[in-house]
């Protein structure tokens, strides 16, 4: 169950690229774990490492001035592609708690909401402006989820948050418990009505 997330205060790091797919965020060769730990070492692996597998230090998150960034300012269509939740786990394991972009892949967006990672959609120009300011490595933001504002200490912009995601993040809610405690009756009632043909026949040996 994720920790509740009320606000994110931290340095913003620019990622100047559109269409950052989850294969880039977490390459498939590292998907073979059966336990969840240490995923940050595979984050953006192909972009951070040279051919010998050493960190070359040129990727933005490895530059000293952005170390410890909590907020990533990306482009459009962030997190498209594969459904791998490892992409979200690697970002949160690294310490990223908030991503600002003009659009997100649907499955990534859902996965993030279940792991205490706040995805904020802003218009393209607003994202571009923030990214340019973040490039100075001097942009520290306070993202207030309850109040739905992003502030740099002087000015503040509002963002939209979907009510269910906001509630889930604020409370660090576990969906399974919530569903079973509140909707067991509806599920059971539905199961009484499933047509017989929908349930696969008892399989012959496979």
């Amino acid at each position: 169950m994720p920790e509740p997330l009320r606000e994110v205060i931290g340095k913003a790091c620019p990622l100047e690229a559109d269409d950052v797919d989850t294969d880039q965020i977490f390459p498939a060769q590292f998907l073979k774990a059966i336990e969840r730990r240490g995923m940050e070492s595979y984050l953006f692996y192909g972009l951070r490492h040279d051919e010998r597998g050493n960190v070359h230090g040129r990727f933005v998150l490895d530059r000293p001035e952005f170390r410890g960034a909590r907020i990533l300012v990306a482009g459009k269509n962030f997190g498209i592609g594969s459904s791998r939740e490892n992409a979200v786990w690697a970002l949160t394991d690294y310490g990223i708690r908030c991503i600002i972009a003009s659009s997100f892949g649907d499955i990534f967006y859902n996965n993030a909401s279940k792991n205490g990672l706040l995805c904020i959609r802003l218009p393209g120009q607003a994202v571009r402006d923030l990214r340019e300011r973040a490039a100075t490595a001097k942009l520290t933001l306070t993202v207030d989820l309850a109040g739905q504002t992003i502030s740099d200490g002087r000015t503040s912009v509002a963002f939209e948050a979907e009510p269910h995601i906001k509630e889930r993040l604020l409370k660090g809610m576990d969906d399974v418990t919530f569903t079973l405690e509140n909707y067991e009756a509806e599920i059971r009632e539905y199961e009484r009505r499933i047509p017989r043909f929908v349930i696969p026949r008892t399989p012959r040996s496979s």
Partner: protein
Amino acid sequence: MVTGKTIFSKVWDSHLLAERPDGQSLIYVDRHLTHEVTSPLAFEALRKAGRRVRRPDLTFAVMDHNVPTGDRSLPVSDEMSSKQMKALTGNATQFGLTLFDYFSPYQGISHVIGPELGLTIPGITLTCGDSHTSTHGALGALALGIGSSEGEHVFATQSIWIKKPREMAITLRGRLRKGVTSKDVILSVIRRIGTGGAIGNVVEFVGEATSNFSVEERLTITNMAIEGGARTAIISPDEKVYEYIRGSKFAPTGADWGDALEQWRSLPTDPGAVYDSRIDFNISELEPQVSWGTNPAMTVGVTESIPSPSEAPTKEDALSVERALKYMGLAPGTRITDIPLDTVFIGSCTNARLSDLTESARVIKGNHVNKDVRALVVPGSQLVKRRAEELGLDKIFVEAGFEWRNSGCSMCIGMNEDKLSPGERCASTSNRNFENRQGPGGRTHLVSPIMAAAAALHGRFIDTREVELIDPEELAPGGLNA
């Protein structure tokens, strides 16, 4: 005024368990497919919480993502893959699920075996921890790709929380020319709408060209809708779909078959149904498509050339093109037909069904793979493989110089031994040309099975409208009756 309902809204409404004021809906899940890579942590979470899989009879496990495609009598050499495969066996046993393991004659890619075994049927809701789950929509199912946390939720509750997607209709009109396929159609659709064009939408493919496609051609289209950002895709079922399902391993039989048909025939979208948006495509003039960049929207026709960053409409687009060209090792202005290839991969949940292999074989038969090309066929399932072998297709491929493998996701995702080397250039019938997708440093060009076959013979792309296609009747003399 009475407006007609779309197939999506019919399936949605009939599976709706609850709606919350915050916009979330709880939807019952009729079918859950799970595989070795995205399931271990979901099963682990169930164990920790002392929960069971609510409906083992509706849950099916298959090994597909990291299985080797070589000799199955040999041990799995990759220790981590072997661990994930053993974990799935253990979890399927503990939670009482039907498992298609490495040695099962029904093993295959989840999105190939679902439809071919009759696990995917019209009107059901289906989830799988894989983004290409949209594939199953071709049979009229509401199919959703989900993450591991959502997978755990489906295991425990047989339901999923989802915000109702918007509805987009994509109308396909006209008739394809010889040598052009449904793969070329979906690539050109993604090129037009972009990788994020359908985000938040369920896309229904409609129009006479959609109806004219075979079920397997439709499966290629719904499979790749996710590459245009779609939450999922769906197509109203018809007699072709019912025939495809009839007699398959898990298909309804007897009186159940009659009940099923009656319900299925009520599913297609009603006349006058309203969508949030509509896009029209005429496919009559479409030429064969080849992707040149690092996402599926970076695609051009075979007679076109590699684009230049200077022609890009925005600074961001120019940067994307520049970066893609650098990764792909291509110069602006290069003709598509002048790109030399190292590898040809015919496989994946997009294009490794029997008809895909048949179409490729129509090009291959009696010819030989170019001396500089490594070519492999990885059937989408062991059942596809057996059926192809019954038709003698394996011999056509092997005699031409192709490797004939066992089933799995293979070089589409590069999680087993089937990988590209850095810089290696591949014509692939798969769905993603992302950086490092087919192996670190590998360069992917997405194409149809016919183009892949032609490219294997020539060592470069050629206009498949001009390729001789052997009559399917002559492909396998005697065929099944031999």
